[in-house]
């Protein structure tokens, strides 16, 4: 698991630089239909995110993109400063959410954007946003509903061909 996070982040970073080129004018309603999140390649296979479908289903870009797309801000916390925000130069998640795992030190690091502390890292930004909404909407929430697991993933979760046999039980109960 040590390298999983890094690979995941590296994958995401690469992917989103590509996506960025395609969605530089979000407010003009031009956006990628599909985003392949080719990440967690150690434990999971890549995810093809149907961005177009999610754009159709959600109230507005700001549900996921906070105040960066120029559409009305949904989160009241963001709206305190960004009520009348113009589209920003970049809208991709990885421009703001660090690919490095968050620690207490990094959370409390003071930067120019005083209210942007305690930001989830990139992996968590995705999962919190996706799963949070999926839970509310009654959409699929199982890990493998979005990610197909690899053999290494099966080994990690002790599932599939790595499922417990019961023979190794040495607890003596």
């Amino acid at each position: 698991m040590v390298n999983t996070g890094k690979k995941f982040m590296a994958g995401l970073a690469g992917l989103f630089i590509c996506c960025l080129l395609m969605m530089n004018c979000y407010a003009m309603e031009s956006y990628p239909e599909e985003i392949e999140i080719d990440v967690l390649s150690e434990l999971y296979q890549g995810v093809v995110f149907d961005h177009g479908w999610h754009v159709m289903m959600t109230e507005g870009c700001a549900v996921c993109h906070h105040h960066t797309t120029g559409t009305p801000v949904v989160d009241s916390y963001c709206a305190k400063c960004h009520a009348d925000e113009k589209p920003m130069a970049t809208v991709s998640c990885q421009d703001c959410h660090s690919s490095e795992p968050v620690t207490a030190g990094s959370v409390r690091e003071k930067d120019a954007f005083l209210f942007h502390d305690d930001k989830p890292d990139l992996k968590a930004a995705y999962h919190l946003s996706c799963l949070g909404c999926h839970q509310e909407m009654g959409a699929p929430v199982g890990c493998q509903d979005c990610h197909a697991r690899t053999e290494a993933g099966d080994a990690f979760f002790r599932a599939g061909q790595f499922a417990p046999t019961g023979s190794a039980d040495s607890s003596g109960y």
Partner: protein
Amino acid sequence: MSKITRRKFLAGSMAGGAAIAMAPTKKAFGANLEGFPDGMGVLVDMTRCVGCRSCEAACNKEQNLPEPDKSFDDYSVFDERPHGHYRRPTEKAYTVVNRYDPVDEQPVYRKIQCNHCNEPACLTSCFVNAYTKTPEGAVIYNDKVCVGCRNCMIACPFGIPAYSYSSAINPIIKKCIFCYDTRLKNGQTPACVEACPQQVMVFGKRKELIKIAHDRIRRSPVKYVDQVYGEKEVGGTGWLYLSGVPFQEAGFNISLPSEPIINNVKDFLAIVPMVLAIWPALFTGFHLLATKGKSHGHGDDHSHDGQEEH
């Protein structure tokens, strides 16, 4: 090193005799309530946990633990009630996630493991000095020293240490060590924390985690209960919890004192040297009872016990 010295002093004073152990030197401990000033901890935000059990799988791998009874993607474990209770850490699983179902609320998932107390009752209760609180904040143990007496199991207010029966000759206590050997001592994030897709956990200095926790509550007062579990409990713990439901609804013991357990444990421990002294006599007694069947002297014994309790 100063802590180790203090620990030796503590254990020494306890093993030394009932007289010292019975007189709580509360003042001496009170000055140390904050533990090591730069001790690390983990903030667990239960409002984010989805019960995916990735953390359990990560711990199993990191700590080279034996094969689990069920796959880590098997969610039927949330309905298990071994011995009528929610799952607790075992010698094969240093951390477990349980699901609670508060009334009128979404299910709540709670990951449990050793809380790495500032003033660990397990450490204080151990009369062979098997436990150490490291300056990094981990409570670790030396299994070569452990004699398997299970004092720490009784002393721990969170029911964490588990007993390994895998070796009848050398039974030992097993529990979460904060990934000390492989990660913490190099300043690295624990395996379970890193594996979590939801960033339920933040690793860092305990002092800073407490500020982050209170910031989150202040920012979302409706979302969170206004309490950081572990900030005060039993003198403070390294692992801290935030919850969206009252803590007792997620199975937390909310009646723990804010003082370390040490003093109570010391009273308890005062009887340990005595128990050791009378151990052979006790076993002789059991043996006699077992071989003799019903004893005529049973009534006498009982009244005698009653007197001793007072």
